[in-house]
């Protein structure tokens, strides 16, 4: 059974990722170390991809049907998008986050061997499932980062130590996070259309995801139009994150959402 060779590939990528990211963190003013670190990260990504390709050939179909198979895609895409974002924006913490998240899926696959054959329910067996979840994993992380900055900003403003650069860096995270959640919303719509013929059904999760999108949309427009204002945008950023949290977890507890298909319960 081809999965018996999975540990080899995952150990290669694990070592490559751990050493790679350590080198990157240790590489301040040492470009050679950074280059070596990045090369190792790419090796790790190739190792993950190789197993997927081998499995694809062995199964004679795209590996998208079981829980174990989808986890392979998470462990592949998370570091890939992480490294692209890190190269573009020099965000080491984001790289660490992406690799950390991909480890979760890698470890789950290493230790929960019963999931290799555990077929997902029919609606989840779609090309759009993995991209939809991945962009939300990234989007939420970036927007959480901006929320932390908002909190930081509110505290600094109270202590008269506020610097407008903080808001500008938050803006950048919001732009990136907003881009990801826009993709997430749209991927979800395209998936729904393929699965049951309707791209939007006003399911509570969809409504709250849309609300999250609108919250950040309003923030982006306010920052564009009134760049000198400080307290209003800081509080709006914090409020937008509260809406995000409701969309993510809160709907499990809202009375209005009990019949949602997205409520994660038994």
């Amino acid at each position: 059974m081809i999965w018996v060779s999975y540990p080899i590939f995952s150990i290669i990528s694990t070592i490559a990722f751990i050493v790679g990211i350590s080198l990157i963190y240790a590489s301040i003013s040492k470009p050679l170390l950074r280059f070596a670190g990045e090369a190792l990260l790419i090796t790790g990504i190739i190792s993950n991809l190789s197993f997927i390709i081998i499995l694809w050939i062995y199964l004679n179909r795209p590996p998208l049907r079981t829980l174990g198979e989808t986890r392979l895609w998470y462990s592949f895409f998370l570091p890939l998008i992480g490294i692209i974002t890190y190269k573009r924006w020099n965000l080491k913490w984001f790289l660490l986050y992406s690799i950390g998240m991909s480890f979760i899926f890698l470890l789950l696959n290493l230790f929960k061997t019963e999931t290799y054959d555990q077929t997902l329910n029919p609606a989840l067996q779609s090309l759009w499932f993995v991209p939809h979840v991945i962009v939300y994993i990234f989007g939420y992380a970036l927007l959480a980062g901006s929320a932390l900055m908002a909190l930081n900003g509110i505290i600094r403003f109270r202590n008269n130590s506020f610097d407008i650069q903080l808001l500008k860096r938050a803006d950048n995270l919001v732009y990136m996070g907003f881009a990801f959640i826009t993709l997430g919303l749209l991927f979800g719509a395209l998936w729904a259309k393929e699965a049951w013929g309707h791209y939007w059904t006003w399911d509570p999760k969809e409504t709250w995801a849309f609300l999250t999108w609108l919250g950040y949309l309003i923030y982006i427009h306010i920052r564009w139009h009134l760049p000198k204002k400080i307290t209003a945008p800081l509080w709006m950023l914090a409020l937008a994150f509260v809406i995000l949290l409701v969309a993510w977890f809160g709907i499990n507890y809202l009375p209005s959402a009990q019949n949602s298909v997205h409520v994660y319960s038994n």
Partner: protein
Amino acid sequence: MDQSKRQLWQFPWRYKEGFILTTGLWIVGLLIESLSGHRSIRFPGWPFHIEMGFGITVLLIIIHLLYKDSALIKWLSSVPASISSIVLFTILLLAMGLIPQQSVKSNGTIHILGLDRIHNSWPFLLSTIMLFTSLSFTILKRFKPPFKKNIFFLLNHLGLWLIIFAVSVGASDTKDLFMQLEKNTTTIVGTDDQNQTYKMPFQMKLLDFSIQLFPPKIALFDNYTGKINVKDKRNLFLIKKNASEKILDWTIAIKEFIPSVKEDSSGYYASNDTGSAPAAFVTVYQNEKQITKGWITSGGLKVKPKYLEIDNNYSIAMTIPEPERYSSKIVYTIDKHHYDTTSIEVNNPLKIGSWKIYQMSYDKEKGQWSTISIMEAIQDPWLPIIYAGIFMLFGGASYLFWIGKN
């Protein structure tokens, strides 16, 4: 320094006027809703909707060309106007997220004000019109050379505009019909949600319905509430012979599992006949001591459900197996000339001309012996425009990610 303060309603308008106008719009919407007698808003059909859609677009372009320097149009294309309209829309959506929608329990006021069906209410419609107007003038303001500079602004805003336009104008063109297929019977009609039947431009016959079920699960449920106890995440687990799992204080061992049984006076016997159900013999231990043992089954048409009581508070039961995969093998004919045999399943719809056929459901009572397959046939002629809008937004979002602010 001369600081002459601008009076309210004195041009150029900004945020205060925007919020007053949108609040007024909302109140007007609530009034119309409460006086209109709970009729759902139906968009005009062919050909009025096309005339209306293009008429409005042309009107907006003309107004822009003639009056773009007027104070009112300048305001409508400004950020304060857009933020005011987005905020109104957001507040309506917030109400939609917090108030249970389409619930039979909604009381008088909520129902009269349309708060239990917000997305089909007058405030929502007026808010969408306001958003659409502000978006249109914003786009028209920036729709000028050099286009390269404005390309990503236009991708984002025009993409959204196309989606709102196509969804609103095209709403009445979307046809959504159910076709109930029965084995070896040809079906030529579809039924809508008002139980009206329509003749389809194709015929379909169900040759075979196949379903693969997951094994059932063991669940611990509360005797008093009848609900599955979910405090322990490992509460539900798939049944496999000789498996044993720990739930709360107990260890449940599966001594015997028969995927398909029927019952007679002497107990369960393996059978694949219609109406069979899965059954398992379980033993429950606590601290290595055997507490109880017995057969459990999820029940089926010919088998009574059976659960095992552990103590006063809890019992063990078997869940009805969930579908792993189900599909319908069908043969369809168009105009008695072209025909084809194919398979339809969830996430794999069939395209026949301008229709798309989706596997919706089956006879869940009969489960794997269902001789009925329910298809949903959807015709969505405006979909290409919506996809164009969606892909423009993909482009705009990629730009947002790559370029960031500035």
